[in-house]
């Protein structure tokens, strides 16, 4: 997973932790607030109940006093005064306690004071009654006084009950509030829990994703590394890292195995490696490395021999990439060693083969010709000699006698010249063949010089060279639109010349000839075609067409050696082109050849030795 704004995984973790911490703090504060409120409402409830209890106790004490006094008044017995005295003694403290309790509650303080007045009035009344009864007897209390007393008592009761009721209402309200708060608290709890779980879940998912991403990346890393290792092992390339700071050199197992050493057998220093390089190659290879280090060359590719443990020399291709510090000083060179001994051996073989080929062509051009000079020369000398003999004998014709003369004449004028003629022809043929071999071998040495060539001009030149034949045979030649291409002019001329020559040469005698030359382009090639309505090539002959000294079997009446197409094919191969044909016997043949599109920028510079061995020869 890619994170936007360049945030790192670590930052995500920290942010996540902060969110959780803040949420937790908030949550704790919410819970604590609730706890405080519950505590407060509890205190309040206790306080209210305490007030109620106190109020009731005061009321009941007052009632006790009244009842005691009434009992005393009615019975006259002092024993009834016992509750009155007790209650009276208690009442004072109780009232004070209540006043203290409700001190902060202004209206209930006033209320309590109002009670106190009433209670004091009742107390005074009762105390007066008690005193009077004690002094004057039970009759001293009038019914009016009793009535007043009852009234006062009722008032007090009503007042206290009202206060209690009010407190009860308050309490109920409080309970309702608490209930509501409890509900709210529950919602907050549920909400908080859901939120917390949500955050936790999101965070966990995020972390899991990040972790799995990381794991995947690590996995990918591991896989690519193992792939790399597998490739390195597979191709058996040795890995090295040359450290220029301390001249140490890491060498992989394959690096050492390539030279026949075990992992612990080579000291990993630059010196070790240099000591293993062939003495003749040390200078050159260091030079190549220096050129790379000083950035004279853009790539490091070095070839040298290194000594194998078994004493043989191995050709090593060393390629690498350097790292430089900011002062342009090389720090390290990391690269691979490839054992190219086999390629080198093959190269050597190839070079040997080429040398052999060169020697062969040289021998062909020189040594095989020498005897031919003799054969030809002396057969001619012989002819001259025979001619002279003939002239010497001629005057002595009569002396020799007719039958002998006739025989001599056959020998001298027929048999010997015929024999010499065959020898001469054979030598000529031999000479042509050796020349052809030589020409073909020289294609490989020809240096192609690319230039802008108008194909139309080239074709016109070739047609001009053939104009005698073309006019003579009444051939109709059509030339389509031909492009300007980048190629070697004389090579193209030879190709067209051979193809047109063949097309003209192998027309049918019974039909007027048509030759058409066209070109079309593909993405990377120009494809030229030369179409004729000539005798065609039999399918069985299709392989012979491009072979040297081979010709199609229906060409016996036309002189030719079977060199031209072999030459064309070899030329085209050198020019990265190709040649092929379509043909139907007695209907005609179309030869196609392709040349790659090129631009002059990549063209080779004009070479000095431009020696093309050009031949025109027969088909096939």
């Amino acid at each position, binding site marked *: 997973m890619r994170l936007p704004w360049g945030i790192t995984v670590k930052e995500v973790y920290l942010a996540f932790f902060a969110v959780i911490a803040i949420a937790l703090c908030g949550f704790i504060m919410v819970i604590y607030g609730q706890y405080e409120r519950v505590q407060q409402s509890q205190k309040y409830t206790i306080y209210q109940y305490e007030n109620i209890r106190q109020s009731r106790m005061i009321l009941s004490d007052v009632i006790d006093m009244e009842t005691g006094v009434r009992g005393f008044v009615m019975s006259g017995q002092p024993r009834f005064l016992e509750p009155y005295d007790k209650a009276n003694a208690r009442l004072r403290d109780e009232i004070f306690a209540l006043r203290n309790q409700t001190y902060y509650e202004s209206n209930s303080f006033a209320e309590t004071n109002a009670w106190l007045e009433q209670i004091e009035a009742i107390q005074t009344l009762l105390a007066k009654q008690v005193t009077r009864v004690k002094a004057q007897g039970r009759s001293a209390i009038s019914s009016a006084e009793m009535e007043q007393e009852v009234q006062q008592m009722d008032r007090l009761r009503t007042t206290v009950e009202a206060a209690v009721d009010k407190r009860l209402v308050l309490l109920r309200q409080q309970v309702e509030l608490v209930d509501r708060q409890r509900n709210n608290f529950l919602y907050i709890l549920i909400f908080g829990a859901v939120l917390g779980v949500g955050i936790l879940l999101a965070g966990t998912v995020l972390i899991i994703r990040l972790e799995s991403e990381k794991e995947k990346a690590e996995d990918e890393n591991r896989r690519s590394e193992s792939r790399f290792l597998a490739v390195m092992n597979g191709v058996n390339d040795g890995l090295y890292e040359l450290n220029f700071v301390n001249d140490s050199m890491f060498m992989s197992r394959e690096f050492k195995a390539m030279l026949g050493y075990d992992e612990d057998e080579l000291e990993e220093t630059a010196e070790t490696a240099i000591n293993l390089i062939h003495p003749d190659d040390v200078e050159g290879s260091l030079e190549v490395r220096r050129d790379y280090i000083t950035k004279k060359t853009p790539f490091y590719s070095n070839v040298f021999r290194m000594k194998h443990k078994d004493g043989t020399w191995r050709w090593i291709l060393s390629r690498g990439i350097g790292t430089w510090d900011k002062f342009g000083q090389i720090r390290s060179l990391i690269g691979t060693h490839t054992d190219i001994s086999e390629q080198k051996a093959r190269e050597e073989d190839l070079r040997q083969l080429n040398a052999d080929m060169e020697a062969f062509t040289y021998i062909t051009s020189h040594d095989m010709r020498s005897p031919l*000079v*003799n054969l*030809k*020369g002396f057969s*001619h000398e012989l002819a001259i000699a025979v001619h002279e003999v003939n002239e010497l004998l001629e005057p002595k014709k009569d002396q020799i006698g007719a039958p002998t003369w006739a025989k001599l004449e056959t020998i001298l004028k027929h048999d010997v010249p015929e024999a010499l003629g065959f020898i001469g022809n054979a030598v*000529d043929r031999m000479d042509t063949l050796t020349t052809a071999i030589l020409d073909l071998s020289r294609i490989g040495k020809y240096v192609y010089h690319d230039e802008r060539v108008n194909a139309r001009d080239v074709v016109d030149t070739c047609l001009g060279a053939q104009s005698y034949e073309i006019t003579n045979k009444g051939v109709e030649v059509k030339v389509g639109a031909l492009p300007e291409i980048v190629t070697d002019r004389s090579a193209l001329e030879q190709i067209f010349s051979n193809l047109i020559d063949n097309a003209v040469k192998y027309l049918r005698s019974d039909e007027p000839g048509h030759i058409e030359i066209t070109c079309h382009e593909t993405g990377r090639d120009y494809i030229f075609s030369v179409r004729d309505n000539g005798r065609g090539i039999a399918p069985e002959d299709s392989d012979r067409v491009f072979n040297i000294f081979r010709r199609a079997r229906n060409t016996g009446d036309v002189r030719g050696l079977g060199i031209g197409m072999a030459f064309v094919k070899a030329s085209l191969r050198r020019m990265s082109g190709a040649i092929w044909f379509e043909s139907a016997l007695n209907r005609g043949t179309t030869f196609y050849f392709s040349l790659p599109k090129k631009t002059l920028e990549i063209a080779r510079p004009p070479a000095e030795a431009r020696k093309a061995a050009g031949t025109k020869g027969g088909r096939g």
Partner: protein
Amino acid sequence: MIEPYAAPFTVVMVEDDPGHAALIRRNLQRGGVINPITLLSTGTQAIDYFFPESGAPQDHADTVLMLDLNLPDIDGFEILRRLKGDERTKMIPVVVLTTTDHPKDIDRCYALGCNAFMTKPVGYEAFSEAIRKLGLTLTVVRVPHISDDQHA
């Protein structure tokens, strides 16, 4: 009009193939060269002829050399190099007459200082024609080099 046979000169032919030597000799004679022709059939003989180990150095002022390149022991290039590298012999006109027409060989011979390079044609007519013309040339064109006192 230049008198063709006025100046007598010796033709030295280095040629390992006796057939070729015979053909060249005959054709030179048919071409009008009646001068003495010395045949040397190996490279060693050629070197001995021009650089004798003992005896006074010979005067080769009136010598024309016809040199084949392919010789069994010391090849024509070597002989050419030594002749043209030596003050005493470098004025000798050398015509390389050989079977090869390899461009490299031709260039090499001229680089070594040969005066003419001729390929032996296989065709007899062409061959004899060439030799006859060579014979004529030899009689007319003498030593195509700057005179000794100027150069030395």
